């Protein structure tokens, strides 16, 4: 069967499944629309959260980033999983006990201030919309590559599908659709990883294969990889080469961003009890960890496979001739994501680090005049099965998985946006008398508008997907997470403190990112070059969210100490959310 036909069959079959589920589970009442009637089991919810969380960035991009950088990009692995510990311990049980539908609702009630609620809506919308733009870009790239249509057509098909099931289905449709998407994406990620791990180490478990002996050389896989990359002038794979401060802050920013992102928090509201909420973050992490434990193995093994392909007789011998290149290089050259230029005119593919000064003499000695092939990091996971010469159905499965990852996250974010607009902005602030039917309608209109905006910005992206994702994390980390945490753990933080804290955290983070990435992400409008020597204390715009969060905490605490006390009924509210359920129990208070 032709590969394109196979791709279309797999992607098409998975679509029929998602849309069928969305149709079967379409929502009736508002309670069902927002929170699936609170009838979702923690394990089901965990799978849906995992699909929601693992976007095109986790599925398509992350293993590639680790592959080409090595240890220094471990931040992604620790950051995007460590946030679930914060979520489970610091937020989930209390927000579930509070028992309302949305994040701004909690912030507005706890800080007894409509202003706080509107500021929270603002943070939520900015974070979510920027995140959706990244996903829509991902949807467009994946569709156009595998269905062999133009980027614009791919994006429009994707937008139509997201619109159809997110708008019609609401949360319940999304929850069960996302379970199906999780199953598709996890198979798509792990099946090629297992095949490749067996090829390289003989061990079917990739996380163990990563630390095992390489069957080709007999030496440990990572030692072999360190050797071959250094032979070509690259930094060692397992070594620590970047700033420690930046790596620490970047990891922290991803962690607190994870715990503060509204589309993940909103999931907690769909679990039936506080006890269930404690487990739900754990179940989500179980399903996420399956991918995250395999991703570093995929990265390392793909890097080794690429170098082995380009240097078939070893890195000390002559590289592959361009005319003998394998089919996957040809295919990806057509998309422009792999490029080749024969700089020294010998017809061979020299792929090495031409920016390394210490390697320059070796390169000159071998007659090399610059690295001749560039490989886009984002294609690694999608190209991986082809690089390892796996069967055609595995390639088609990965196509379906990449699309599932991008679509599911986009849908979850759209739901968070629509709830914020219809519920927090209209029902509770601007139009308190709105009927349930009109509230539902407003939610659907908000989703449609958000999809339109994201699609339009996805067609003319304000920057790379990674930059947009960085902004989403920075905003969530610097604005929403501190407000939520202080709302639960510090009963003396008052309305003025919380509002000022959110605004300072949000403003500082946006400012710092825009200075280096361009104002509103418009290319060329950045005030400073985005390179380490211009960053404040070597902190990259990706890592600045943790500094923004610290400023948020500090501002809120200082202002609260110097303004009036929190009212008694709010102190009672805080006491109430801290304890799962008070019973009218005549017995004395038991010891712990």
């Amino acid at each position, binding site marked *: 069967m032709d590969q394109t036909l196979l791709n279309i069959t797999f992607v098409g079959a998975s679509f029929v499944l998602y849309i069928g589920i969305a149709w079967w589970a379409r929502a009736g009442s508002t309670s069902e629309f927002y929170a699936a009637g609170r009838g979702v089991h923690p394990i089901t919810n965990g799978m849906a959260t995992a699909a929601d969380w693992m976007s095109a960035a986790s599925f398509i991009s992350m293993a590639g980033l680790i592959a080409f950088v090595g*240890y220094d990009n*471990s931040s992604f*692995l*620790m950051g995007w*999983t*460590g946030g*679930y*510990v914060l979520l*489970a*311990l*610091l937020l989930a*049980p209390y927000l579930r006990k509070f028992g309302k539908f949305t994040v701004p609702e909690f912030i507005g009630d706890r800080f007894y201030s409509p202003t706080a609620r509107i500021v929270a809506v603002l943070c939520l919308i900015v974070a979510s919309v920027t995140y959706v733009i990244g996903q829509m870009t991902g949807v467009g790239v994946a569709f156009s590559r595998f269905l062999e249509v133009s980027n614009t057509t791919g994006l429009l098909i994707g937008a139509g599908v997201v619109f159809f099931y997110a708008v019609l289905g609401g949360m319940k449709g999304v929850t069960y659709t996302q379970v199906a998407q999780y199953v598709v994406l996890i198979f798509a990620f792990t099946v090629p990883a297992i095949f490749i791990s067996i090829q390289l180490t003989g061990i079917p478990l990739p*996380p163990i294969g*990563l*630390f*095992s002996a390489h069957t080709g050389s007999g*030496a*440990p*896989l*990572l*030692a*072999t990889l*360190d050797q071959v990359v250094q032979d070509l002038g690259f930094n060692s794979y*397992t070594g*620590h080469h970047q700033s*420690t401060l930046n*790596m*620490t802050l970047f*990891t*922290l920013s991803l962690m607190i961003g994870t715990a503060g992102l509204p589309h993940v928090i909103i999931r907690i509201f769909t679990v039936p*009890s*506080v*006890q269930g909420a*404690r*487990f739900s*973050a*754990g179940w989500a*992490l*179980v399903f996420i*960890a399956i991918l*995250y*434990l395999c991703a*570093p193995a995929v990265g390392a093994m793909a890097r080794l496979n690429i170098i082995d392909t380009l240097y078939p007789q070893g890195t000390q011998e002559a590289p592959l001739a361009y005319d003998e290149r394998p089919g996957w290089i040809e295919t990806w050259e057509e998309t422009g994501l792999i490029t080749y230029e024969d700089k020294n005119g010998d017809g061979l593919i020299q792929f090495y680090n031409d920016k390394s000064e210490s390697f320059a003499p070796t390169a000159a000695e071998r007659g090399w005049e610059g690295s001749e092939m560039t490989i886009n990091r984002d294609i690694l996971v999608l190209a991986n099965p082809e690089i390892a010469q796996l069967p055609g159905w595995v390639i088609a499965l990965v196509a379906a998985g990449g699309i599932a990852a991008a679509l599911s996250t986009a849908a979850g974010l759209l739901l968070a946006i629509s709830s914020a607009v219809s519920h927090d902005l209209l029902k509770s602030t601007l139009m308190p008398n709105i009927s349930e039917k009109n509230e539902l309608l407003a939610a659907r209109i908000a989703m449609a508008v958000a999809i339109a905006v994201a699609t339009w910005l996805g067609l003319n992206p304000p920057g790379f997907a990674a930059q947009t994702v960085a902004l989403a994390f920075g905003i969530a980390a610097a604005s929403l997470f501190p407000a939520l945490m202080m709302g639960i753990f510090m009963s003396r933080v008052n309305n003025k403190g919380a509002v000022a804290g959110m605004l300072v955290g949000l403003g500082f983070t946006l400012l710092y990112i825009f200075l280096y990435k361009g104002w509103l992400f418009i290319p060329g409008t950045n005030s400073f070059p985005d390179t380490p020597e211009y960053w404040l204390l070597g902190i990259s715009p990706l890592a600045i969210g943790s500094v923004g969060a610290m400023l948020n905490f500090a501002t809120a605490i200082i202002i609260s100490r110097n303004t009036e006390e929190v009212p008694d009924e709010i102190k*009672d*509210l805080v*006491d*109430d959310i*801290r*304890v*799962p*359920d*008070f*019973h009218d*129990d005549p*017995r*004395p*208070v*038991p*010891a*712990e």
Partner: protein
Amino acid sequence: MAINQRHHELAERYWKANIRIVTICLIIWATVSFGFGILLRPLLSGIEIGGTDLGFWFAQQGSILTFLALIFFYAFYMNRLDKKMGVDERGA
């Protein structure tokens, strides 16, 4: 929301127990990720595992496995504490 004296006392004692266990869990959380994975990696460089050192393993595998254990430990611990202190959601 009339919270009587008993509720206050219960809330205070329950919260103290919760803060203690959260603090312990977060110390472990930070130690395996920021500690073993990044800042203390040079100290672990002598312990070899699969062609690299233990710090690398913690950064790419160990921290994730520890996070999982922490969340489930906390959930089991707290759900047991809820029952013991009579604040679990009965018939909710």
